[in-house]
């Protein structure tokens, strides 16, 4: 069957890139990040999600090579 890590990895990578780019684009918008205690959570979460997505993809590929 399909390895579930592939769709998970793809989805989190795509959303991760999307949110990080959005975070970068809104970097100067201090008003928007006031509610998140002046932290650019989009950039942080975006990067974290991208890393998570890539780890998932890496693990799914590594398994394939072994088999």
């Amino acid at each position, binding site marked *: *069957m*399909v390895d*579930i890590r592939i*769709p998970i990895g793809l*989805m*989190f990578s795509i*959303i991760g890139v999307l949110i990080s780019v959005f975070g970068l684009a809104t970097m100067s918008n201090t008003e928007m990040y006031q*509610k*998140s205690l002046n932290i650019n*959570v989009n950039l942080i979460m975006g990067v974290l999600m991208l890393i998570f997505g890539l780890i998932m993809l890496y693990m799914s590929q590594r398994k394939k090579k072994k088999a």
Partner: protein
Amino acid sequence: MKVDLSWIDYLIMMIYFIFVLGIGWFLRKFMKNANAFLEAGRSMPAWVAGLAFISTNLGALEVMGMTGSGMKYGMLTTHFYWIGAIPAMIFLAVFMMPFYYGSKARSVPEFLKLRYDEKTRGLNAILFAVMTVLASGISMFALALLMENVLGWNFNLSLWISALIVLGYTYLGGLSSAIYNEVLQFFIIVIGLLPLVFLALKDVGGWVGLKAQLAPIAQAKGFAADTFTTTWKYSGSAGANPLGVEWFGILFGLGFVLSFGYWCTNFLIVQRAFAAESKAAARKVPLIGALPKMFIPFLIIVPGIIALALSNDPGKGFNLPLSSGGGPDYNLTIIMLLKQYLPAGVLGLGITALLASFMSGMAGNVSAFNTVWTYDIYQSYIRPRTGNEEEDGKHYLKVGRIATIFGILLSIASAYIASKFGNIMDFLQTIFSLINAPLFAVIFLGMFWKRTTGHAAFTGLLAGFILALIHHGLTVPAGATTIIKGGWIANLHTYPVEMAQNFWTAIIAFTVSTTVTVVLTFLTKQKKTDEELKGLVYSLTPRELNDSHLPWYERPTGLAILVGVIAIVLTIMFW
């Protein structure tokens, strides 16, 4: 109280929907017979089934309700996650799973048929099917209402679209698709709520700051200063903690009867372990699920506790909207917190997490419903197997798919009934939740006492259910205004809180079931031979398990000890 979403939030949601449906689409070609569709071909790796196991339980009502409970009861809510889940999950994995999985039963009702008889299966199958449809209808209604009130979406549109998405991926890929999506949903829920926990905790000055802010609030309510940040410390008497239940009720009612009834016998949950690729994997499923389960309180209960501090700090401007009854609407706690802290972008992620939790709960209901309907009702009473395996497989696949559509349509219907007669639906749900405790009594006795007979089990099941019903009809929680909460026969006893009433109803159901089953077993004749019961009863099943060559973390007992130790450490840390 409206939450405004921007284009990026909607975009994230769309990406999520595409992946959810895409998984179903990719799996559709593997659905060649009923076995693949309804049982996922018994091919799931332990970690996949384990995460799905916990994700099914993490439905929208659970997430919204537990954050609300966090705000009402503080850390005491973790009883539902630690004492109220972990022992039962360990028990299921170590002691019960070998018989469930080894029996080759495809559902819990079918296990009852193998161990006892047809009538016991029939009773359980029908009650379960009705309860499942009710439950998914009620959560669907709650979600659509939330979308209407908070996001300004159209009620009918949100109801139908969310139902159609769940239908789409469960119809295409069956249980495999439901399980795969539950794993995806698990990660979305965790990652989507993570920024909220982090920001909210930072805002109140960390755990230490939170404790300090909660002390005057607790004292104003007449409790000790650290009531909201401790678990067992004030459970000596019911009046000393906001939960309103004393240690015995928590330990026996929640920790034993309710939690074993839910985790060990609710097919919705257990089905995920049935889908595992081997007996050894099936035993690991509940334990792998238990590892994240223990930490979910930090994700959904802690924000609720923070909401309590925020709502008492005028400077924060945090208020819950009022419910129709007049008090604060605790179910909206999580969404108000998302609104408070998350800017566009991660806000879309948080809302997607809520939608994901709704879908994982609903897909769980649907995939359990279609299995019980196809195997336990249709196959046993309407069209039995012909013997031609290939043709049967195709026929029951078709039936399973039609049952999926019907299950969703019935859920939609019950969602509309709930929107018109909400109280009646609440009442029915309370009633049907009474079936778990007697079921656990009967399955437990069946697995560990070979003499238990079919007649005794059937009567025990029925008696426990009826007595629980009568208890509910004779008692009321303090402050109840409608008969839906109980007391519809007479009012003989008033419980301080509704939760105490629920705990005691379950305790009575379990005790009556056990007593009746044991007494009747001595009065009736065992019709099953020892040979027939092999693999179903503990004492008649040879010990085949020899896993001593595996590393400890590959062994169910090794994992069980790890889970138990972490649970104990957490309990002591937040004692």
